[in-house]
């Protein structure tokens, strides 16, 4: 391959850190004299960081502010409040011009493989554009670099001169990915990169993103609404609801031991493609729809739909705190017991030995919690355990 530049990250800082990020969009009335009649609080106090080579998943329902967070983090939008740091450099108030040299460190991949590419440019021109924009001349020339990129993302380099319309959705997403990795960025925001694709193609693209990460050490902020997809690719996951991060923790913890009531409900709402396991799950049905981000509920924004809400939740907004090491949650009453709803029951054997250990200990605590019978009747889940995919282990859910 043509060596372009060394993308390995040196500074020791996270590639991205956002602190108390807020992005409010004014709502204006129409007409000759528009006036501001409210604020869409698309992102309302979000903090997280993304470490080099890591994938942070960002999940939540439509309109909860995922894309806005991603775009603000790349400084495609100027935040209303808060701080954005890239590689330890504060870029919150940088002008577009000052941002130019930083742009090569970060890139974005979009959801819609149909509109994200200029239909009048050839694939070669699209993928090579970042070189021209940044004035970078890769060793061996742009053309060779582009052909190499095409090969790497699974496109036929012979198709250099074709137009986007001649490619399928999955192939167009590969074009977008090739363009994003052209300058070997440290960091890519992926905004629902596989949502518009068929499952069989989704898997191809997820694998490609994982391979590129392994090879180049790229960190991803991976925005998606599909928790199963996020689990496939993320090291840590943040769950958003109405402009707030509700829970942020490692993948293993989030799926096996969620704390926030919303995460419990979200996980329970996703049907797993396994009829026997699915039939035996508890369902937490949330009532109602997402409230409007123009008038978010008082106190905890989730209280209108929360199944364990107390009076205090209506007035007192829970701040996000570290409930366990590395496990942040914004809730007054985190749920530590197993509700029979999360599809992952106990440790994920695919994980490292130490997390397996952690999982075992946690399994014990869940057992005790289930006994406590605080919220849900524990019990009837996984009646026919042997048939279901995962052996639930004794005692946990009878």
């Amino acid at each position, binding site marked *: 391959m043509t060596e372009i530049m060394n993308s390995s990250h040196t500074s020791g800082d996270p590639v991205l850190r956002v602190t108390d990020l807020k992005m409010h969009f004014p709502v204006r009335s129409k007409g000759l004299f528009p006036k501001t009649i409210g604020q869409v609080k698309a992102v309302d106090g979000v903090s997280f960081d993304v470490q080099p080579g890591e994938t942070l998943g960002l999940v939540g329902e439509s309109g909860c502010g995922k894309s806005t967070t991603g775009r603000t983090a790349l400084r495609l939008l100027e935040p209303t409040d808060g701080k954005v740091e890239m590689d330890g450099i504060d870029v919150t108030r940088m002008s577009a011009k000052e941002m130019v040299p930083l742009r090569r460190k970060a890139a974005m991949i979009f959801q819609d493989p149909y509109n994200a590419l200029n239909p009048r440019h050839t694939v070669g021109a699209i993928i090579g554009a970042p070189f021209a924009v940044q004035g970078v001349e890769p060793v061996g020339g742009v053309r060779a670099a582009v052909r190499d990129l095409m090969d790497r993302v699974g496109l036929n380099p012979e198709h250099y001169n074709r137009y986007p319309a001649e490619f399928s959705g999955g192939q167009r997403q590969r074009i977008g990915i090739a363009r994003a990795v052209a300058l070997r960025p440290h960091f890519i925001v992926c905004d629902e990169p596989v949502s518009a694709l068929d*499952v*069989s193609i989704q898997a191809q693209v997820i694998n490609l993103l994982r391979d590129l990460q392994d090879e180049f050490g790229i960190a991803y902020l991976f925005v998606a609404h599909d928790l199963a997809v996020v689990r496939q690719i993320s090291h840590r996951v943040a769950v958003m609801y109405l402009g707030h991060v509700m829970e942020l923790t490692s993948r293993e913890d989030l799926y096996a031991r969620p704390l926030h009531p919303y995460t419990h409900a979200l996980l329970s709402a996703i049907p797993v493609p396994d009829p026997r396991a699915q039939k035996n799950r508890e369902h937490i049905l949330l009532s109602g729809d997402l409230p409007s981000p123009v008038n978010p509920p008082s106190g905890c924004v989730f209280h209108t739909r929360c199944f364990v809400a107390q009076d205090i939740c209506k007035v007192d907004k829970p701040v996000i705190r570290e409930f366990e090491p590395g496990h942040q949650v914004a809730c007054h009453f985190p749920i530590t017991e197993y509700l029979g709803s999360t599809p992952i029951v106990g440790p994920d054997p695919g994980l490292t030995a130490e997390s397996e250990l952690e999982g075992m200990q946690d399994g014990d605590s869940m057992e005790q919690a289930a006994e406590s019978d605080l919220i849900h009747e524990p019990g009837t889940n996984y009646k026919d355990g042997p048939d279901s995919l995962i052996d639930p282990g004794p005692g946990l859910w009878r």
Partner: protein
Amino acid sequence: MMTDLTPAPRRAYIEVEELSVQFPTEDGLVRAVDGVTFAIDKGQTIAIVGESGSGKSVTAQAIMGLVNSRTADVTGHVWVDGQDIVGMTDDELRKMRGRTMAMIFQDPMSSLHPFYRIGAQLTEAVNVHNKVSKKEARDRAIEMLHKVGIPSPEKRIEDYPHQFSGGMRQRVMIAMALINSPSLLIADEPTTALDVTVQAQIMELILELQQEYNTAVVLITHDLGIVADAADQVAVMYGARVVESGVIDDIFYAPEMPYTLGLLASVPRLNQVRAERLDPIPGNPPSPIRLPSGCVFNPRCVYTDRVEGNLCATERPALLPTAPGHMVRCHMSKAEREAVATIALGALGRETT
């Protein structure tokens, strides 16, 4: 197609037989549906799964008689309660639509008329098929809205669709579909446009009402999770054809068709044992204008070498029973198919039954 002019007594309530729909277009003949066959009884749910463009929606619309006979060529049979929908006059069809069979669509945002009140749109559905007074129709509409969980329906009936959220609009669509207690409900990706928490509500509602009315449901989806959650039977579509069908356990625990295997292996699942690499199907879905000859799946199939000669590329396999009620469209021998399934599902970390 059928040589037997007096149809044999029908067993199932709905029987789709060798249904084909072709659209002549400027680019060529679009074969949207090609010999689709399945059957379903009252109170049962069949899920039709497949990638986008595999012909799911056109199948549904053909069953409803919504495919315009002027722009499309429909052949085969759709027996609903012993009557063949294909070949019915427009008026006969119209009388069945909304009364015997009803449909809900993917996008609740655009499926209701933006200019008419919810109430007017519901009572209209009552009035087409029943001679009832204004008041009766209105009461029926309110009762139905109540049933689908719209709070204070007597007030909301005066609202316009844009005053409802997506989830509520889909509830209204369900109310409208079920208002004349049809015996067949076709739901074309009813939750694809909705958030997961709302999707859970809507699926729960559909299944609840299905029990109450003993409706046969044709559920179209590309989400295997929903299939696992809701279906009794499954028909897997690929390239305009049903490539495998059977009861839900056949498809999830004893699949035999390579495409089904690939589909199962490529879905990320929350309860997977290891969050390991997915095993995608290589290549891209076929264009309906240039469906591959032979087996439609052959350009992407990794098992073609297990079939004698070049049969996969030349000979179209038939949809044949492999076990009672379990149909597979593949040239491989049963032994080969089972061997292949064991390998594919073994990689998934699951045993076959």
